[in-house]
């Protein structure tokens, strides 16, 4: 037991000494105590119940702070085992083993994640005892929502809407093609999310991650026993089958080789993002892969479905969205950097230091906004799309958040949320820019240059 632990123990007002009495029942008494770090001893004051010196005792110090109306907080405890020996009026313990938890040091959510193995072990034992599977229950809707990480589909919806908007401005628009593109893109995205969880479970990356958040560390449905690896594989395969089937339908319906090439590249990037042999995210290429997949591939794909040709404008408008979605991954990888690195998943935050990662974010975010500014100023994209620059303060907020909470996964959560929001706001603002330009052209005979 080190001096730090003695110092921590000294902060408690009393201890509880427990032992097993001759009748086999535990018995306990509170006691005054003094922790002597120099001698490595805990000296326990006189108690009305005689303390034993012929058996092991467990000395526990615990603390909570009552919070009327809610319950309590500041949970912490230290538990020491060993044998007591008398020394004058006092009984002395030289701890043989120590255990404890302090939620200020190990947040509750991390403590829970660290205990997943025990939970699975216990539920397995219950299953064997009963002859039927005992597993955690969650409604199918919640399980699907968690497993697919459905809220993150905004990463697909934004670029597809943009591709459709660019095509509509060029005079190509079909509702059913737009709908099929959205559903197909969403299915491939779900396939990617679930495949990512499968390969992270197989590599041990998610198991090694004790500080997942709602933005990082995977869906955890496998680690929490909500779905088996096999069920997750079925879900992933099902999503890919739907997505690829829709893709094939669109290629056949539109007879476009460009679309075939984009579709094949998109599916390949999605699969090999975490799947061997390429495992792009393990090689520090996750951001580039994500940028390509959720940027040019989605925007151009959606455009080609409508227009049956490629478009420079669609490519240009995809660039800021590509950079910002790559930054979503980049920031979400910050809390996972140690667990990812421990299993060879060498993401950029796992490779780079704190300063480089933080500066890298700022440079990339500013680059995304610069593309919007230049493209709108030169009329490559509609000028009203410049409203996307309104999200610049969000970039600054995220930068400040990364700087402040780089080492605190749970405190970084709000920043990760703002980062996701930045991608969504910029994407929707660009889309709104197209809508404003369309409306202006439809309503005004000669709309001013600022509106087109």
């Amino acid at each position, binding site marked *: 037991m080190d001096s730090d632990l003695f110092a921590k123990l000294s902060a408690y007002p009393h201890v509880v000494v427990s032992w097993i009495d001759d009748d086999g029942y535990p018995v*306990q008494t509170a006691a005054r105590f003094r922790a002597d770090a120099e001698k490595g001893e805990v000296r326990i004051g006189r108690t009305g119940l005689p303390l034993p010196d012929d058996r092991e005792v467990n000395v526990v110090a615990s603390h909570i702070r009552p919070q009327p109306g809610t319950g309590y907080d500041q949970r912490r405890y230290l538990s020491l085992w060993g044998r007591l020996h008398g020394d004058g009026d006092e009984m002395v313990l030289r701890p043989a083993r120590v255990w404890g938890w302090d939620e200020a040091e190990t947040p509750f959510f991390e403590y829970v994640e660290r205990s997943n193995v025990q939970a699975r072990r216990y539920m397995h034992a219950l299953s064997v005892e009963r002859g039927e599977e005992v597993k955690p229950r969650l409604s199918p809707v919640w399980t699907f929502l968690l497993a697919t990480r459905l809220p993150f589909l905004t990463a697909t919806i934004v670029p597809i809407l943009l591709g459709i908007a660019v095509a509509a401005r060029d005079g190509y628009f079909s509702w059913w093609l737009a709908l099929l593109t959205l559903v197909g893109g969403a299915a491939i995205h779900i396939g990617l999310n679930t495949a990512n969880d499968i390969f992270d479970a197989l590599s041990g990356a998610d198991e090694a991650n004790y500080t997942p958040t709602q933005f990082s560390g995977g869906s955890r449905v496998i680690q929490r026993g909500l779905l088996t690896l096999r069920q997750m594989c079925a879900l992933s395969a099902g999503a890919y089958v739907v997505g690829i089937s829709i893709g094939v339908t669109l290629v056949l319906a539109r007879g476009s080789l460009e679309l075939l090439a984009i579709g094949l590249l998109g599916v390949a990037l999605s699969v090999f993002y975490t799947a061997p042999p390429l495992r792009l995210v393990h090689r520090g290429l996750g951001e580039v892969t994500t940028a390509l997949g959720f940027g040019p591939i989605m925007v151009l794909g959606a455009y080609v479905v409508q227009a049956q040709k490629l478009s420079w404008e669609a490519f240009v408008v995809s660039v800021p969205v590509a950079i910002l979605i790559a930054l979503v991954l980049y920031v979400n990888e910050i809390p996972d950097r140690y667990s990812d690195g421990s299993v060879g998943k060498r993401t950029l935050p796992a490779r780079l230091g704190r300063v480089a990662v933080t500066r890298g974010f700022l440079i990339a975010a500013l680059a995304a906004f610069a593309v919007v500014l230049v493209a709108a100023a030169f009329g490559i994209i509609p000028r009203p799309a410049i409203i996307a620059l309104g999200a610049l303060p969000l970039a600054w907020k995220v930068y400040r958040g990364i700087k402040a909470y780089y080492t605190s996964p749970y405190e970084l959560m709000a920043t990760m949320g703002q980062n996701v929001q930045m991608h969504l706001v910029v994407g929707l603002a660009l889309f709104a820019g197209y809508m404003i330009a369309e409306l202006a052209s439809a309503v005004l005979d000669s709309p001013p240059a600022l509106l087109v």
Partner: protein
Amino acid sequence: MSWIPAPVDELLAAALVCEMTVVGAKGQPVTHPLLPLWDGERVYVTSSVLFSRKLEHIKRDGKVSVAITDPVACGGLATRCTVQGDARVFEDDPHETWTRILPLWRAKEPAIDFFLGKRFALPLFFERSLIEITPRRVLWWEDGNVESAPSVATPEGAGHG
């Protein structure tokens, strides 16, 4: 009428934390700080499957004791006590069985409803077993002075000092 002495009854009803000791695999004491719930006859604690080693110990040996010693966690009550008893684990359905003591839990920790509403985020935390402890002997120090001998009460006889 319960044989539990009034000061101990009051303490059990107020306490936000207890130290529950179970008999470990090698016969050693293993103590866990927990939220004690009291219905006037029995002490209840619940355990998530995440922190289920205590359940394994209780299933092997149901002899337990519960100490309440922290005045700060008992609304300022100075009394201290140790309740020895026999524990049973109820876990027919770890998803639901424990919820029968939810009113007692809610009374001490109102925030539990908030967390229960976010069950999807902590699915394993809310897969729980209910531990019911039937008291067989109570030791208590009414003035909180543990340097004096405790008063003792058992179901067979009145409490005595």
